[in-house]
């Protein structure tokens, strides 16, 4: 569904992405892993067209995304740090997004708005919200328009355990609907029952892209966190 070929992106002297090629296919739930600053967010932003790669091509459903915008109506994106216009209220933000994306399939999915309890604080301004509540708004917006691809950048960072569990359940149910889900996270333990593939990056390069089962078999570990730390040790030694 998403095919990236040899994408390279440089920010000044830093090579954020170095010749990364990758294929993400439908129905998979892929974890993008790697140390801080390895280029995960840059990769995600390149897929969304927020960052324009210096070279290489990205295709969404066999069509190049450069200078295209329509394909984004099929992506739900939850940023790492959601930034919203400060003097808008939650309802205004949600209504604006509905207005922008209304041609989309079906009625908006407001499950998360309800289960996160956002409908009790709809009149609050975005600038007064805590980090966690802002994350909840981002999550609710990402899932709202029934997208076929979900891109979640550190979705549970800053969420309380209860909300993060609700979000996890939502991710699992969307996965069962056959959607492509990309997640970055540093909390490996919570990824165990979500993901099907692991995509590991280091210093802007792709280190490996494997099925979870294959990874577990290779390392002989049952837990993702242990398997990854085993590999990280091998790489650094």
């Amino acid at each position, binding site marked *: 569904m998403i095919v990236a070929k040899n994408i390279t992106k440089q*920010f000044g002297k830093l090579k954020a992405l170095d010749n990364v090629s990758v294929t993400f296919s439908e129905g998979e739930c892929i974890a993008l892993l790697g140390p801080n600053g390895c280029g995960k967010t840059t990769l995600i*932003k390149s897929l*969304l*067209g*927020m*960052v*324009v790669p210096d070279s290489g091509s990205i295709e969404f459903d066999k069509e190049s995304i450069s*200078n295209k*915008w*329509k*394909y*984004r*109506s099929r992506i739900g*994106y939850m*940023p790492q740090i959601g*930034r*919203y*216009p*400060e*003097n*808008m209220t939650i309802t205004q933000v949600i209504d*604006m*997004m509905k*207005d*922008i*994306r209304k041609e989309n399939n079906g009625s908006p999915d407001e499950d998360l708005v309800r289960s996160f309890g956002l409908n009790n604080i709809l009149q609050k301004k975005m600038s007064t919200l805590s980090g966690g509540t802002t994350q909840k708004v981002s999550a609710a917006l990402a899932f709202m328009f029934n997208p076929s691809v979900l891109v979640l950048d550190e979705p549970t960072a800053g969420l309380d355990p209860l909300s993060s569990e609700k979000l996890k359940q939502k991710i699992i149910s969307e996965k069962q609907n056959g959607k492509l889900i990309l997640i970055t996270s540093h909390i490996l333990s919570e990824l165990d029952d979500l993901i099907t593939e692991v995509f590991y990056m280091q210093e802007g390069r792709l280190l490996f892209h494997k099925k979870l089962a294959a990874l577990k078999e290779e390392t002989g570990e049952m837990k993702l966190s242990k398997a990854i730390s085993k590999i990280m040790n091998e790489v650094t030694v």
Partner: protein
Amino acid sequence: MKKLLKYVIADIIQNKIVLLYTALLLIISLSVFNLENSSAKGLLSLLNIILILVPLICIIFSTIYMYNSAEFIELLVSQPLKRRTIWLSLFTGLAVSLSVAYFIGVGIPILLYHADATGIIMIITGLFLTVVFVSIALLSAGLTRDKAKGIGLSISFWLYFSLIFDALILFLLFQFQDYPLEKIMVILSFLNPIGLSRVQILLQMDISALMGYTGAIFREFFGNSTGIILSFIGLCVWAIIPLMISLKKFKHKDL
């Protein structure tokens, strides 16, 4: 585009600066017209205030607004919208709300006190100046990511067009006074939107004593009506080109 424009304009109106700007212009115009005993004199005093104040406020407000909308832009770019639509909506929102402010603050008093051809040309020129300086503001906001640098750049643009440019012209004139400079001066006068507006209104008013060097040459060269049309075309170019450069920059910007 329409959808976005609605949110941009709502946001600008919530920001009370535009309302203050309208009130300020209204107070200035009304007091100028009431202080001078002839409305033609009033119009002339108003012209000088407008040529300084309108560009300054338009450019600085628009630059700051663009930087403060960084979050909004970031949110929109990840949505199914063309970058072109986002940028042009912001531009149109700013241009429309500042033009409305100008029309209420200056246009209506002019229509009340001095509603002849000169007055109407002055209203139109002011609207053009507003759009031109919003466009230049978008350019400086597009050139740098740093807010302080962007605002600094905007202030430099304003200083350049309202003071430094004229000084440079005078300097050139004195240095090369032995040479025929008329043609060059006409070309140079197109390089400054504020100067162009001044020439335009003075051509209409037909006050050669106040026209300055470029103005006098302008009239000699084109005659009054051709001069006015040409200077309008010049102002249009000034509104479009900075906008197009900033749009091109924005299309490749990393957010």
